[in-house]
């Protein structure tokens, strides 16, 4: 129960941050990627503002064995730069540029993004489902034989 409450609070603060920062506005995101046009650096400020508290949290987490609510803390796995990471990021970045939405803002704007926002969300879920067998294959390839 407490875990769900804490997760709900984190989600709400995330949603608030995405709206306040302007990241649910696709023109700001596309503006960040539009280096040859009317470039908008806002996204860099959002990233910078987010990385600072997060970096502190990672330092705190490194000195703890478990989280406050008693679950294991995520440790850094092997830093393999596999084809899934590279090609997945290429596809993700290309789609991000096409519409100016990524998964976080797509969720945060569901209530006010109209039918276009709902269509994007539905297509995103289909894409995620389609990726499942590829993820499984990548895991098999990475597993020690």
């Amino acid at each position, binding site marked *: 129960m407490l*875990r*769900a409450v804490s*997760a*709900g*609070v*984190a*989600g*709400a603060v*995330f*949603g608030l*941050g995405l*709206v306040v920062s*302007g*990241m*649910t506005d696709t*023109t*700001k995101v596309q503006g960040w*990627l539009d280096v*040859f046009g009317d470039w908008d650096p806002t996204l860099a400020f*959002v*990233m910078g*503002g987010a*990385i600072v508290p997060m970096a502190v*949290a*990672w330092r705190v*987490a490194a000195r703890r064995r478990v*989280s406050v609510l008693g679950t294991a803390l995520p440790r*850094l796995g092997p*830093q393999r730069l596999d084809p899934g*990471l*590279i090609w*997945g*990021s*290429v*596809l*993700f*970045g*290309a789609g*991000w*540029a*096409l519409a100016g*939405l*990524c*998964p976080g803002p*797509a*969720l*945060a704007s569901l209530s*006010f993004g*109209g039918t*276009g*926002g709902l269509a*994007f*969300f539905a*297509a*995103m879920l*289909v894409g*995620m489902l*389609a*990726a*499942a067998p590829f993820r499984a294959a990548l895991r098999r390839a990475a597993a020690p034989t």
Partner: protein
Amino acid sequence: MIETDWLWGLAGGALIGTAGAIFLLMNGRVMGASGLVGGIVDGTDRGMWRETAAFLGGLILAPALLRPVFATETHLTDSLPLILVAGLMVGFGSRLANGCTSGHGVCGISRLSLRGIVATAVYIGAGGVVMALLRHLWGVI
């Protein structure tokens, strides 16, 4: 010159990082939007689905409740084919890469994860190239 939008970006970013800090230190989990949604979609989330659903609920509801205060628009394109192709690519790509802007970007870079840093450089680079081609060369978006 510092513009107001940049300061809102910084403030909103600090909130996003705080949310990630809460999720990490309280729940012991990485705040990656694609991983949280994807885990529910393909069933890999299993034992965590309840708190994941609570997180996603908060993420959707908070902006809905804040509409009277922060009335922003998404300015999403009207082209349905473009929206659908973009959604498919974002969903498929972020799952294949095991992370998106929040997971690889915010959470990965802040712990100096090589995968997070490389992924972020690649998706921003790919996005920049696609934007240059489709907006300035072909005038599609």
